[in-house]
């Protein structure tokens, strides 16, 4: 069993209880325009270029056997030509070029996560994220099974757009589900994210019916999800499914803008994080809708 991952974050403090290690799996069925990890969207690996590390020396252009690279203000990658041979990465003195995505076995995945087991203590553990953690669900379930076997607490961060069999496989090995509900309106969901939310909501209800430990989260994205109507709707809905549901609002974090620059793409979300006052307003809405457990970082 193998899977494609693009990062491991150690000392993850926002991905569940205690201190955790988080494995980022590639591939996602949604296309959220504000995605914080655009490098995780596609399943296939790609060459990643960090302009900040680039010395402009041109070594990569000279060594590329496929002539896939050109140097102007920055290095441009002709993605159709790049065969991911890794030569430029090996030779780049600044460390500006690297593979995003590598294939590893489930056992290797578990080892990467368990490397910091000494930090997990009573509360911490491992988390799968992405991309979408369940996009490669067989791999994901096997990694978590191995982690559980080693005694670690397990969690996934997921948008829940996954087939029923994936849900069942994950339910068997996952202690905590940190799930995203971004829009309640199926039309908005389809329009902005490329798929409607019917399966997502079904899966959420499945988790609740199975008494899984669930935390619902909504990223507050200006111009998208951060409207009173949307948040009120989500709150009302999840409260109707589970009156004890835990709900967390994630303030917009514009730091990922530099990632889009590295991909030579525009980032569609303007502005910065929401103000304290705006956040308070949303929290008030949650209270009005009877959310008992509002989680704040």
């Amino acid at each position: 069993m193998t899977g494609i991952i693009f990062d491991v974050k150690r000392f993850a403090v926002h991905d569940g209880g205690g201190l955790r290690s988080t494995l980022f799996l590639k591939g996602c069925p949604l296309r959220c325009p504000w995605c914080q990890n655009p490098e995780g969207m596609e399943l296939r690996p790609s060459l990643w270029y960090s302009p900040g590390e680039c010395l402009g020396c041109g070594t990569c252009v000279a060594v590329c056997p496929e002539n896939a690279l050109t140097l102007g203000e920055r290095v441009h990658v002709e993605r159709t030509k790049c065969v991911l041979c890794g030569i430029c990465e090996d030779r780049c003195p600044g460390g500006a070029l690297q593979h995003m995505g590598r294939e590893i076995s489930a056992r290797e995945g578990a080892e990467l996560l368990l490397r910091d087991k000494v930090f997990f203590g009573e509360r911490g553990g491992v988390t799968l994220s992405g991309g979408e953690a369940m996009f490669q669900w067989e791999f994901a379930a096997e990694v978590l099974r191995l982690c559980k076997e080693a005694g670690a607490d397990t969690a996934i961060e997921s948008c829940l757009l996954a087939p029923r069999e994936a849900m069942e496989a994950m339910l068997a090995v996952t202690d905590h589900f940190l799930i995203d509900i971004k829009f309640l309106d199926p039309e908005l969901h389809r329009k902005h994210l490329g798929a409607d939310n019917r399966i997502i909501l079904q899966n959420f209800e499945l988790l609740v019916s199975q008494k899984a430990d669930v935390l619902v989260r909504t990223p507050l994205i200006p111009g998208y999800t951060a409207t009173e109507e949307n948040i009120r709707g989500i709150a009302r809905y999840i409260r109707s499914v589970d009156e004890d549901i835990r709900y967390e609002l994630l303030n917009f974090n514009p730091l990922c803008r530099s990632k889009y620059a590295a991909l030579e793409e525009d980032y569609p979300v303007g502005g910065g994080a929401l103000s304290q006052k705006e956040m308070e307003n949303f929290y008030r809405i949650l209270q009005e809708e009877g959310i008992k457990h509002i989680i704040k970082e």
Partner: protein
Amino acid sequence: MRIEEISKLPCSQRIVQLKEEMLEEPRFASIEQACIVTKSYKETEGEPRCIQRAKALKAALLEIAIRIEPEERIVGNRTSGVRGGVVFPETGASWVDREFDTLPTRPQDKFQVHQEDIDTFRREIMPYWKGRSLEDQVREAVGPQVDAIAKVVKINQKDHSQGHICPNTKKWLRLGPAGIKSEAESHLAQADKKQHDFYNSVIISMEGASAFMERYATLAEKLYEETKKENLKEAARVCRKLSHSPAETYQEAVQAVWFLYVILQMEGNASSFSPGRMDQYLYPYYERSVKEGMTLDDALELTECLWLKFNQLVYLRNSNSARYFAGFPIGFNVAIGGQKQDGSDASNELSYLFLQAQSHLLLPQPNLSLRMYKDSPRELLEAASRVIGQGSGMPQVFNDEAVVPALETHGVSHEDAMNYAIVGCVELTTHGNALAWSDAAMFNLLKALELTLNHGVDLLTGEKTGLDLGDLTTYASFEELESAYAKQIDYFSDRMVECVSKVEKMHEQLLPTPFLSAVIDDCLAKGQDVTQGGAHYNFAGVQAIQVANLADSLAAIKSLVYEEKKISQEELLHALQTNYEDAPLLRATLLNKAPKYGNDVDWVDQLGVKWVNYFADGLKKYRNGRGGIYQMGLYTVSAHVPMGQNVGASADGRFAKDPLADGGVSAMYGRDTKGPTALLQSVAKLPFAKASNGTLLNMKFLPQFFKTETGIEKFTDLLRAVCRLGISHIQFNVLNEKDLRAAQKTPEKYRSLTVRVAGYTAYFTELAPDLQEEIIARTTYESA
């Protein structure tokens, strides 16, 4: 335990006022004691040295100007001003002569001066001590040997007396000066001539101590008559009682502790006499006073009075030494928590009161240290985490699981190891029975590598100072380079030990310390001064510096030059010799293409481990001047900046003269890119059992981490992991860059901003600009 109640105690108006007054008062260099002592020495010419020393101390105790603030409850100082820089000619007069005029303008640790003091010093003090002070005598005895190795090994204790000592405060509290005097008198009957002098010197010192307390009692009575302030009446009663009887109440015990440390500093003027486990030995006094009706507010205020006092003594160093130990650290190190000798939990209400005092005052002293072990109570770790989150860098955290075995490995009994304390910044000691000479020398392993790569020739000066074993181009393999490096280390270790022993001998001849010896076991029993080896434990400590740069440099050479051959031996040697002037890409390759210490990359970390082991094992064959063994430490304090200035370009991509990694076992700043857990995993591979002199790990966190209960929980999880990993010490700077930039721009607004420099905390605005920049540059762990 009333933990919750303690955490809500407010800071009293008295304390707020005393703190403000203290911080407002300017610092002056003081020659008052120098004048008294010099006069005394002239009168006692020809008497045994220990008697001369005791009489000089007694004269100072009788004559030095004393002062009490109207609001004070705990009294005493060694100068009439606060934070005075005491000129101490017995140990160093020549440097004072050279630097007196520049004290107000030097980059680090400035003091104001009175012109008439400079004139008096040059007219009356300097001429007597020229050629007689420790500094001059050391220079005459070993000056050339010390200079010959100076770039690799910095020999310390050449111009001040040895500190880093944790006296037996418990005994002082039990007996007081009068009781100790009687003890010395009882030994006199069976004493030989040399012991006779020693016991007499103790008796004279204790008479001085009693008289000093009486002077304070009299002054407090006089001030009470004028002001009718009850605190002064009580202070007078306490001082009067302590001059002839032991302490019984909490206030008496706190006052007695403070007198002990003032007098130790008047005798020794040394860097660090540490109170050690104050929550343990003060507890019986606290308990008694609580039974008699002392409130928590009252206990806290008394504690905070002492905390302020700890900040009123600073240490005047020469300008070079001030760069190595910047920010006047004087090292009143107080340890809380940990285990009792039987392994049970030692924390008590005083542990929490001390944390609360720290949380209120956020001052550099005391250097508050938390002892942690595998079963430390959650409440204690959480309370400590909250105080750490306030950003004063304290408490720093020590790990019994690592420290106790390290001490036992070096011959310390289990009971003494379980009762360890911390002295100075991060140095480990037993309680009340050791002269550990913790800061004998600092050994720059990176400089030794530089010499090995370049025919023993210094890259910065072109002088040949080391063994010529070849250069990088002549070593056919990495193993050949390593075996040459081993020889280079041996060469400098031999020379270092010779110098240290000679310096120790000079201390024995010139600086016996009878008052101190009376509170270090077994000096009175043996009839021997500490400088003669009277203590039960006699160590000497050498710091190995700096594991991160060494591991990174060796890893780059091993992988990029010898294995992958991405860089040729000639290219790299040339680049080092020319400080990467025309080789930016080669430097980038070194920085980016070889993994670095601090990222949990095993083979790199193991290179650091290997050479730390080699160095520590090499020390085993030596004995120090008092017959004890050498111990290795892994810390630099702020010395990574000046020590870096001594080192040319290194193969880790560091430019010539740039600072080394900070702290001791930290990664090179900015190069631990895998986060704190990876850093800690790397650090945990080091042989802490061999680093019984102390280690230092700095980590920097942003304040957001501590803002929520979840954050506090996660932070204590991190502390628990540090404990399980067996890392001996860790400390945290909690601040953000914006704060520090603002403090640089408007220092006056940030006068009380303290930062962790290394094993101690200093006022940020009082640090030199390059050290400020360096602190800002250290890796920051944002809330990931």
